[in-house]
């Protein structure tokens, strides 16, 4: 069992291992947590979504995708539009959702 864990760990560190990315979207109209819950509900329906984080303070919607998965920009814009919001920018980063959450919480 111990050997298996070590092998799995090494496999995860090896070049070419499955890579999970984070999509960060800047969104207009994000002013109310009660109203913004539709964003999470809509994005979590996508099979490529692993986790979602919404920050009103940072006008940010971040989506962690599953390993080797991505969501096209147009699908993201449509998901936010269906939730009633407008996406102004989309970037893909290597920051984990945990790092983004921590960064948002650290802001005064």
């Amino acid at each position, binding site marked *: 069992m111990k050997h298996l864990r070590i092998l799995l760990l090494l496999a995860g560190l090896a070049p070419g291992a499955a890579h999970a990315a984070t999509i960060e979207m800047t969104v*207009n*109209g994000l002013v109310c947590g*009660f109203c913004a819950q539709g964003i999470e509900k809509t994005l979590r329906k996508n099979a490529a979504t692993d986790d979602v984080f919404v920050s009103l303070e940072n006008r940010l919607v971040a989506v962690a995708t599953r390993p080797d998965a991505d969501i096209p920009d147009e699908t993201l814009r449509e998901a936010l539009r269906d939730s009633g919001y407008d996406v102004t920018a989309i970037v893909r980063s290597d920051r984990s959702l945990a790092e983004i959450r921590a960064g948002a919480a650290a802001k005064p």
Partner: protein
Amino acid sequence: MWKTCGHTACALALAALPLAAAAKPIAFAHGTTVMAEYGAGTMTEVQAFYAPTYRYSFGGGHLVLDSELDDRSRDITYMRFNVLPKRWNLPTAQANVFAWGGVGRAYVGETGEDEFAWNAGGQFDYETRRVYASLRTDLHESSAFSHRIDTLQLGFAPYAHETNELAVWFVVQAREYTGGLYDGTEVAALLRLFKRNAWIEAGLTQDGKLQAMVMFNF
């Protein structure tokens, strides 16, 4: 509108407030909104709406109106269609124009008869994370009555809430009824709390009566 507290005093008091989060008849695409309001004994209403897209929703409601002035009472059950013709998504604010209309049946207390009834209304709201304003008008008519309920709400939040935090709002509400339901302007001070998909607000009118609302989105 300002008969109860005097035109100038009320206008100044409301203008002095920073322009809270507004209750909306459309949640989000494939979302359902359920709401119940107790309006100081004059109105009690329950509503449920489903939104196929964020632009419109449909559903129904039940409204009970009891006059403060005489024995007028109405029990109105209706189907309603809500639309969002315009939304402004700004970097740190959102504003909306909603409109709705519907039909139903109304039981008229004085005559004991059921009548065909229709309703129409609209709402404009503007909100940031700290300030909010909404103006709503709701008309209910039948051959036996015509009642319009106009509601102005202004609110402010002591802090800017985050998505999963408890949101706290202090709201002042001014409401007028036509058709002999209430004389003057009913003013209420409300505390509004919401977190995730649950919303509750409660307060007192200038007559010391309870004004309360609960709402859920899912």
